[in-house]
């Protein structure tokens, strides 16, 4: 086989010619009557799609035909640039030569692109550098992902914005955009909207501190095809919800909101129930995902009225009182995570949630306490709809009815499958 490969790669003729030569030299080589060099490009393409990039690159060195296949546009529609520095990451980066090649030969083939950047500013710079060169691209998807600290935030804002706007202006058909933790601002959003309002379906921009409620409102007003949106609570307004529920707007599928407290005692505005109602009327099936990272005493404005939350995550300690309110005001709740509550049992609150949140199918409890009996009651009431039940072992407090060894059988019985609490090593 090796001789064959050498012949192909050193030959200056096309594959067929060199292979005829080889067949003369090694008549018994193609005993199955099959000539690798004559493999049709479509089949090569199919095979190459299964290979990791590195293996594909090796394959491309075999012969001219395979080299051509390697550069077929279909193989370059999708690329993830991994930009890492040895000083700040353990993972390997995309080879700079490869990046050069892609920009030179394939930038107009690229459609789905993401940048994975480590915590160094150099990596973020490198990403911007590539972005600025994507002038011939018609991107459908762009993702800027910081895998550790948000290094895009450390770039000079103007530098980042001008790189990003290159894509906004030239692509004109952006459908999905993920720009969380970046210094994107209102004017750049205007540029995005001006060029991509017909095609934009997904926008994820959590923790973009330079954007204002007016900026995001502009997006909602113009991009009527928006189906997925992720942003921080400070950008949420009644006007935004109404804009997303306007007649011209498609049904929203997914709205993710991060409620984050910068300093203890921060004040948060309220959203009117009527705005949520309008959203629900317009998009009855939409998912409302809310992540709360608040101090216990900052929950005042929340859960006072009915709110259509489907996925609820409490990242910090949350009080019994708030969990009680959740039971009352979140009838659409599907998933609930409580990272911590404290040392008073959540029995009542859980049972109320089981009763009132009839769609609940997943729950996770961290540093909380629930008596075993109440927990069994909770599971009994939810029954088999609980597809995910992640309870840390320490949460369950044995009582007169059940101890820890008995509880997993009781719960398994009601769930219809074998269940154990989540355990942590103790040694």
């Amino acid at each position, binding site marked *: 086989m090796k001789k064959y490969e050498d012949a192909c790669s050193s030959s200056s003729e096309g594959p067929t010619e060199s292979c005829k030569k080889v067949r003369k030299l090694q008549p018994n080589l193609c005993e199955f009557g099959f000539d690798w060099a004559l493999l049709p490009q479509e089949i090569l393409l199919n095979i190459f799609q299964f290979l990791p990039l590195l293996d594909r690159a090796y394959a491309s060195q075999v012969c001219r035909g395979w080299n051509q296949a390697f550069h077929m546009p279909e193989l370059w529609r999708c690329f993830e640039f991994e930009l890492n520095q040895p000083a700040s*990451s353990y993972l390997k980066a995309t080879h700079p030569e490869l990046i050069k090649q892609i920009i030179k030969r394939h930038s107009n083939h690229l459609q789905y692109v993401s940048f994975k950047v480590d915590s160094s500013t150099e990596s973020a710079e490198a990403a911007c550098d590539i972005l600025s060169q994507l002038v011939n691209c018609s991107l459908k998807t762009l993702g800027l992902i910081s895998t550790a600290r948000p290094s895009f935030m450390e770039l000079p804002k103007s530098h980042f914005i001008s790189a990003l706007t290159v894509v906004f202006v030239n692509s004109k058909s952006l459908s*999905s955009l993920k720009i969380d933790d970046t210094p994107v601002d209102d004017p750049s959003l205007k540029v995005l909207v001006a060029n991509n309002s017909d095609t934009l379906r997904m926008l994820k921009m959590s923790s973009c501190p330079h954007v204002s409620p007016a900026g995001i409102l502009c997006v909602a007003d113009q991009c009527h095809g928006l189906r*997925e949106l992720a942003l921080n609570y400070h950008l949420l307004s009644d006007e935004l919800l109404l804009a997303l529920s306007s007649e011209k707007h498609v049904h929203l599928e997914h709205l993710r909101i991060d409620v984050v407290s910068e300093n203890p005692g921060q004040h948060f505005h309220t959203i009117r129930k009527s705005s949520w109602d309008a959203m629900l009327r317009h998009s009855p099936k939409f998912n409302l995902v809310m992540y709360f990272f608040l101090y216990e005493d900052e929950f005042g404005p929340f859960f006072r009225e009915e709110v259509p939350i489907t996925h609820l995550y409490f990242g910090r300690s949350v009080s019994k009182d708030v969990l009680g309110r959740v039971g009352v005001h979140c009838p659409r709740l599907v998933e609930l995570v409580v990272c911590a509550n404290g040392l008073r049992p959540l029995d009542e609150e859980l049972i109320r949630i089981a009763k009132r949140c009839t769609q609940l199918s997943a729950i996770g409890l961290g540093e909380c306490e629930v008596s075993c009996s109440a927990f069994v009651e909770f599971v009994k009431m939810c029954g088999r709809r609980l597809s995910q039940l992640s309870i840390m072992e320490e949460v369950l407090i044995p009582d007169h009815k059940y101890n820890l060894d008995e509880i997993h059988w009781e719960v398994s019985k009601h769930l219809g499958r074998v269940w154990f609490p989540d355990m*942590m090593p103790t*040694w």
Partner: protein
Amino acid sequence: MVGNTIHWFRKGLRLHDNPSLKESIRGADTLRCVYILDPWFAGSSNVGISRWRFLLQCLEDLDTSLRKLNSRLFVIRGQPTDVFPRLFQEWQTSQLSYEYDSEPFGKERDAAIQKLASEAGVEVTVKVSHTLYDLDKIIELNGGQSPLTYKRFQALISHMDAVESPAEIITAEVMRKCATPISDDHDDKFAVPSLEELGFETEGLATAVWPGGETEALTRLERHLERKAWVANFERPRMNANSLLASPTGLSPYLRFGCLSCRLFYFKLTDLYRKVKKNSSPPLSLYGQLLWREFFYTTATNNPRFDKMEGNPVCVQIPWDRNPEALAKWAEGRTGFPWIDAIMTQLRQEGWIHHLARHAVACFLTRGDLWISWEEGMKVFEELLLDADWSVNAGSWMWLSCSSFFQQFFHCYCPVGFGRRTDPNGDYIRRYLPILKAFPAKYIFDPWNAPESVQKAAKCVIGMHYPKPMVHHTEASRLNIQRMTQIYQQLSCYRGLGEHRAQPAETTANSLKIRLESLEESKQIPITNLIGNNIMCFFYSGRGHAAVKRSSEDLTPGGSNKAQRQTSN
């Protein structure tokens, strides 16, 4: 033919339940117990003073016990592969015995020694006694693969034969005619070295909170059982502030060094339970501490890369941050979070911290706040923690950083809140961080929030006498939960694809790349799905993981694990 036997102590630093030693004494004329001070201690030179001191105390204790049997311990410096051929020759050895070491590095070393032994005509006697079971049997029961979930492991254990009884302790009767030739200059050549001789600075070193040795271990065992009997309650005790402090009944370092036999502990626990609970059958949870240890040994034994992320088939490839400065702050207890700093201080001073304290600092370093690799944390624990050996330490770190074992990642320990809930008065902080002693309980866990007047009154201004918090916890945990969600989403994404094509047979390191390309191209699913839809985002459902298929894991023991064999290369 004179039977000269060498017993090689590595772990298993005890005379009770030491079947390999017992076996080798039988029929031998001479016995020499050696300990080889291998500068590369268990594969790494990263060992702090507390661990050395503990080890030396164990060796002293062994020497003392052997003296009572008219024998001595022979401490020899060097590498086993250099030392043994010399000893075989000098002592005309006919037999070598040692306790089985299940760790990959240990197995490799022992294979080399076995070869040398057979070349020298020396018979080798090896017995399992560091673990409850023969780990290979557990793996066999699981179809040739190490179990990857603790639940699975427990299910397998319940199908194993009973744990073997501990061997009887070595006494003068056991020794019988077997003698130890002791030269006059034994102390010069073979004595247990002191810390100073090993190059440590011992001035100002406090007395050991955990004194090493078999004698201490057995005393503690009795105390431990007494306390359990007195409480008549075998439930896991509720966590309170006191639990954080070193307990005179704590046993984990002794189990690690083998001063205490895990099997002895197991049987004594079983007997006590039966006595107190009137003959009922003990539940598996009674042996929790021992079984976790066993679990990690089992998962690690066939995986030489168990302590690494890269190239480790059971470890999720996570883009941890490389940040030596931040790591140093954590390791040295200068994070500015009193709860974390107090724990790391206790660890450095005493060599032991409560397992919940371990969770807290491990979470803080990795997936909770600093987003630094668990490998770094593992190295620090290796240096400082008395009961951390290779398998258990690496396994626990992977677990606590949610890098393996299908551990759910949604739960993050708050470096303020968790401490406050555990020790509301703050006494633990005051004990290990005296600089914060005068802070009121209200502010001691987050002193940076205390008004200036309070700080001044406590004679500790944050930023001057005690560092400011090194991260904004809310911000950090928000970012990190995003990261973890993203990583696990990408793992869960491929459940459909696995069925249609052969799983790429290599580590998760490459597979993410493959999936990226193949996902988009072959199945016409746009890459938006990888950066989009967050449904079912809070939990990892465990499907489609490259290395292992979870569904077969949990339930029936000895179930088909063909999928695992195919994918794990």
